[in-house]
């Protein structure tokens, strides 16, 4: 085939198209909006994203500001005080109270939204990129390489996730970045498996063979033909994976392996508050609720997306 042929043919193919088929994305959105759970999850998520974006405006204090000397009569472990709800005006207003270091818990929870959302997206993003690479390589190459890579993935999956993450962090050293990396590594096999299955099922389809015959390179095939077709399960799993990642990184931070004080990360806030729990339950309650709601939002949205993208369920 001459070098000039493929683009010419590709052009002809485009011209032949008369009407665009209904967009899968518009279909999906319609299906998604019909699901109460998913809408609820989406609403919570939008709320948290807004909180994260406007954290500086919403927070009443700095997330790490120690209020001793800044505010009159600031005391540690004061319970929540909202003037509108009957808290005496003489007392300084702290919606969620103050913590053991005399910091405003509300401001810390608000700023924690930023950290947790970033953790979720970055960790899962990392896992998806590496997982997709490994999965497509395995699916595309087949044979021994496929076998080797997938057995390695099996081994990673065989560990209880949190325990493997702890073992990895113990080697890498503690810190938010390392714990994200650990949770990301632990999550890779799931995406690698999805990608490999998609590649294998799509590799031999006619439209891929056609593209190959038209002279498309391997990378082009992968990025333009195969990956788009594997996106659906990746998006569903990714959304659910964010819930998992937020939870797991918070768990590592709770154990003191992730975010380090004074960073306003929910898991580490709860971990620090553990010993004063019986005197000041609000220190656990508010970051705990924020964490659970964030995870719930991604779980509901992920479940909804799975149903919305599954053609068997609505046609």
């Amino acid at each position, binding site marked *: 085939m001459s070098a000039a042929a493929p683009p010419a043919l590709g052009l002809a193919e485009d011209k032949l198209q008369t009407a665009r088929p209904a967009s899968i994305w518009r279909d999906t959105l319609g299906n998604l909006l019909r699901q109460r759970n998913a809408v609820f999850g989406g609403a919570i998520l939008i709320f948290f994203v807004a909180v994260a974006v406007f954290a500086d405006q919403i927070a009443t204090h700095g997330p790490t500001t120690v209020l001793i000397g800044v505010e009159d009569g600031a005391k540690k472990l004061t319970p929540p005080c909202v003037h509108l709800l009957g808290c005496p005006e003489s007392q300084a207003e702290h919606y969620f109270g103050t913590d053991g270091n005399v910091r405003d818990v509300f401001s810390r929870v608000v700023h924690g939204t930023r950290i947790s959302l970033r953790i979720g997206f970055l960790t899962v993003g990392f896992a998806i990129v590496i997982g997709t690479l490994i999965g497509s390589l395995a699916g595309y190459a087949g044979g021994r390489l496929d076998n080797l890579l997938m057995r390695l993935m099996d081994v990673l999956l065989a560990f209880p996730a949190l325990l493997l993450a702890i073992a990895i962090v113990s080697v890498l050293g503690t810190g938010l970045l390392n714990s994200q990396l650990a949770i990301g590594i632990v999550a890779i096999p799931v995406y690698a498996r999805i990608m490999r299955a998609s590649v294998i099922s799509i590799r031999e389809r006619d439209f891929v063979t056609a593209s190959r015959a038209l002279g498309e390179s391997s990378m082009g095939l992968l990025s333009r033909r195969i990956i788009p077709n594997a996106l659906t399960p990746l998006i569903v799993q990714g959304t659910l994976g964010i819930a998992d990642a937020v939870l797991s990184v918070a768990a590592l931070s709770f154990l003191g392996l992730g975010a380090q004080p004074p960073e306003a990360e929910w898991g580490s806030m709860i971990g620090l508050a553990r010993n004063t729990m019986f005197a000041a339950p609000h220190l*656990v309650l508010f970051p705990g609720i924020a964490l659970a709601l964030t995870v*719930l939002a991604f779980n509901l949205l992920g479940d909804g997306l799975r149903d919305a993208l599954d053609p068997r369920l609505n046609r």
Partner: protein
Amino acid sequence: MTRFIIRRLILSIPVLIGIVFVVFALARIIPGDPCIAALGERANERSCAEYAASHGLDKAIIPGIFRVDGQIEIRPAEFPATLVDNQFVLYVQGVAAGDFGRSLKFGLPVTDLLMQRLPATVELTLYALTFAIIAGISLGIISAYRRNSIADVFTMLIANIGVSTPVFVLGLVLAYFFAVTLNGTPFELPPSARLPAGVVVPALATVWGLEGLQGPPRAIIDFLSNIFTFNALVRADWGLLGDVIRHMILPALALGTIPLAIIARMTRSSLLEELGLDYVRTARAKGLRDRTVVLRHAFRNALLPVVTVIGLQLGGLFGGAVLTETIFNLAGVGRAVTEAIGSRDYAVIQGFTLVIAIGFVLINLLVDLSYAFLDPRVRLR
């Protein structure tokens, strides 16, 4: 069926070797000199050379790959000579003989520590799993049977919230509620430890007069003896049993809630699928009672995916045990791991990770094998 079992057994061997290798590799990646970590101030050139020789650290890590002064060196020429004579083979031999190294913090062989700590974790996991299975399956059945009723919506709401609530948040909230809010009521529950202060559990070996016994049989008896529920049951010590259960309720609730939610959801969807099938209609048309149709006919067939999910939950339970034991002050494997992290006691972390991962694989192997008994289709394949 024998072929199915043998095939499944053979397939799990590479995974087990892989697990050992991953843990071994993690141990060799750790930055810093293992000799200085082990000997501390006593580390000098001579003692370190002795330490390296006695622990095989001067050998190749894996065939052809060495670590010299913290740097990885690849020596392809030495590949054949180090094929068997390398650290990985030594490690596997050690693990096979039950030697996981020595804990620096606890001053004990990791194996001994494991035998001390594992019973509490096993006990906690069993309580949590029992709670999750009984409550999860019941809720799932009710939910599927009364689809779209208030009971269904409410159950699924609880399941969604349950699956999203972190173990450590739920644990702390439960501890506060049952120990502080309900303080002084009959529902008050202890928020920490396995037993009330001052209660001592007699060792079964002593009770049975087997103190002279040595070796593995003694280890097994000591292990079982440290599972307090078992201990109380075989000695018919109902007071102790009550104490143990009261101390286990909160940790089991905290740890079991996520699996409960997952099991309930799986039971519901699996049972709904079965209830829509023809044989269910036939059974109903025959005039069988609803109860019989749902529980005897549909539920049995819906059980298979539920069993799979239960097996997979064990991994989450072992991970969650780390958090639960930390919150409720239970001297189990999980808390040993968190304590070990604080003191960089790598041998403990790796030994425990390895043992729990291997246990997880073996349990899932058993789950797979149980299909053969649950589902005749697997048996015939």
